[in-house]
C-alpha cells in the first residue's frame, strides 16, 4: 500500500514536471503557426537583416530591433548582474543576519512594483536628466538599460542570496581555519559552491530584461532604426510587438507574430549560450 502511494507520487510528479514543457510547446506551436508562414512569405533573410520597418508600405525588417534588443539587454545586465551579485554577497557574508532579514525583503519589494511605474519614473526623472546632461532625446538605449538594470536586481539578488545561503557553513569554516580571510573564503569557496544558483539568477534576470515590455516602451523612444550610439532612441523586439499589436491587422499582425518567433529564437539562443558557459565552467 505504501509502495503504491510512492509510485503514484512519482508518476504524478513526472506529469507535473511536464507542465512547463507542455506550456512552452503550446505557446511555441501557437506562435509558429501565426508567425512562420509570414517569415517564409517575406523571406527569412530579408526579414532578419533589413532595417526598414514600415508597415504602411509593407516593409517588415526587424534587423534594427534585434540589434536594439541585444544592446539594451547587454546594457541592463552590465548594470544589473555585477550590482546584484555584489549586493547578494555583501548581504550574505558581510552583514549580520538580522540586518539581512530586513534588507532582503525590502529589495524583493522592488519586484512587486509594476514595470509601468519604473517606466513612468524613468520617463519623468531619468530621461530629462540624460537629455539635459548628455544630449539626445533622453529616451534612448542608456535610459532603457538603466531602468532594466534596476528591474532585474530583485531577481538576481534574492536568488543569489538563497544560493549563497545554501552553501554549508563547514565550507567557510574550513577555509577560515586554513588562514584565509573572510573575502578569500568567499571568493575561493563560497562563490564556487553557489555558482549554479548565481548563474541561474542571472539567466532569470536576463530573461526578464529581454522580455520586459512596458518599461522599455516608456523609456527607449521606440524608433525602429539602427542605433549608432547609447543616446539614440531604439525599438526592441518586445516593444515592437506591444506597441503595434493592438492596432495591427492582416500582414502587419502576422509580421508582429513573426517578431515574436524571432524573440523566441533569440531567447533560446541566449539560454543555450548561458548553459554552455555554465557547463564549461563546471567541467573545469
Amino acid at each position: 500500500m505504501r509502495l503504491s502511494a510512492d509510485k503514484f507520487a512519482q508518476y504524478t510528479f513526472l506529469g507535473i514536471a511536464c507542465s512547463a514543457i507542455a506550456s512552452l510547446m503550446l505557446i511555441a506551436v501557437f506562435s509558429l503557426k501565426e508567425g512562420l508562414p509570414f517569415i517564409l512569405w517575406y523571406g527569412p533573410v530579408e526579414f532578419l537583416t533589413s532595417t526598414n520597418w514600415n508597415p504602411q508600405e509593407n516593409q517588415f525588417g526587424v534587423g534594427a530591433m534585434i540589434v536594439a534588443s541585444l544592446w539594451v539587454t547587454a546594457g541592463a545586465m552590465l548594470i544589473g548582474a555585477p550590482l546584484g551579485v555584489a549586493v547578494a554577497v555583501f548581504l550574505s557574508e558581510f552583514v549580520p543576519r538580522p540586518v539581512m532579514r530586513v534588507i532582503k525583503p525590502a529589495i524583493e519589494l522592488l519586484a512587486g512594483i509594476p514595470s509601468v511605474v519604473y517606466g513612468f519614473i524613468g520617463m519623468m526623472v531619468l530621461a530629462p536628466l540624460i537629455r539635459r546632461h548628455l544630449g539626445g532625446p533622453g529616451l534612448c538605449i542608456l535610459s532603457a538599460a538603466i531602468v532594466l538594470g534596476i528591474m532585474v536586481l530583485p531577481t538576481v539578488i534574492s536568488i543569489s542570496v538563497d544560493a549563497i545561503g545554501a552553501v554549508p557553513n563547514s565550507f567557510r569554516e574550513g577555509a577560515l581555519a586554513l588562514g584565509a580571510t573572510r573575502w578569500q573564503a568567499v571568493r575561493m569557496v563560497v562563490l564556487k559552491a553557489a555558482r549554479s544558483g548565481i548563474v541561474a539568477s542571472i539567466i532569470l534576470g536576463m530573461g526578464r530584461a529581454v522580455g520586459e515590455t512596458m518599461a522599455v516602451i516608456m523609456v527607449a523612444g521606440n524608433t525602429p532604426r539602427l542605433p549608432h550610439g547609447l543616446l539614440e532612441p531604439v525599438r526592441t523586439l518586445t516593444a515592437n510587438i506591444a506597441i503595434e499589436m493592438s492596432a495591427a491587422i492582416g500582414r502587419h499582425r502576422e509580421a508582429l507574430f513573426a517578431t515574436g518567433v524571432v524573440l523566441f529564437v533569440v531567447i533560446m539562443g541566449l539560454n543555450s549560450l548561458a548553459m554552455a558557459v555554465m557547463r564549461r565552467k563546471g567541467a573545469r
Partner: protein
Amino acid sequence: MSIAKLTVLLVGVVAVMCGGCGKHAESVTLAGSTAFAPFAEKLGGQFMAIHPGVRISVQGGGSTVGIQSAQQGKAQIGMADMVKLPPEADGLTAVVVARDGVAVIVNPANLVTNLSMSQVRDIFCGKIANWKSVGGKDALITVVSREAGSGTRSSFEQIVGNVKLTSGALVQDSNGSIRETVAGDSQAIGYLSHGLVNSKIKALIVDGVPCTVEAVVAGKYALVRPIFLLTKGAPKGATQAFIDFVLSESGQTQIRKDGLLPAK
C-alpha cells in the same frame, strides 16, 4: 503539513470562485479603442444605474481588437477610432457616436505658435528638421508620433496627406505618453486627442485655425476623426439600448463635457 493545507485552501478558493458563476440577466461587453474606452466605461456606469439588470463591461486593447472582437463575438460592441475602417470591419454595422479633434502640440517654451498644413507634413516627413525654418529657435526638431496602425495616427496622416514618417521619429503608444514626451522636451512636436491638451503643452494653430471645440464643431478645424461603435448585424436588446443611450441627449452631453465632440 502546511504545504498540503495551503494547496487545499487555494484549490478551494478556485472552486468557490468557479462555483459562483451566477451570470447577470444580460451582459454587454465593449472592446477596442483605448481613446473611447474611458468614456464608454463612464457611460456604462450611468446606463447600469438606470438598468440594474444589465452589466456593461468595457475592455481596451485598441481599435483592431475592437474590430476583431466584434467579428468573433468576443464582444457585443467593438470600438474603433479611425477615419476609414479597414476591410476587416466589412460586414459590421458601424455607428458614429462621437468625433475627436487631433491637436498638433509642442512644448510651451517653443516660440512657434502656428504652422501651415504643408509645414506640418514636411516636419513629420523629416524635410524640415530645424525649428529655425518655421520661425523658431535654432534647434533640431524631435518628431513624436503614435505607432503604426493607431487610429489617431492613420487619421492624422490621412488628413495631413502624403506623410511618410521620418525614420528618426520617436514613437509612443498612447495619448498620455505623447503628452509627457512633448511636455518634457522643448524641441518636440507631436499630436493627440484635443480633449487631453493641458497647460504642460501647447496646441498649435493649423492653417490659421486654432484647435478649439468651437472650431471643430463649426467644421473649420481639419484634423477630426470619427469614433465608431461596431456590432455584428443589427444591435438587439441591451446592446441596442446602450447604443441608443450613448446617442441620446444626455449621453452626447456627457461626451462633450469630457472633451470629445458630439456625433452630429
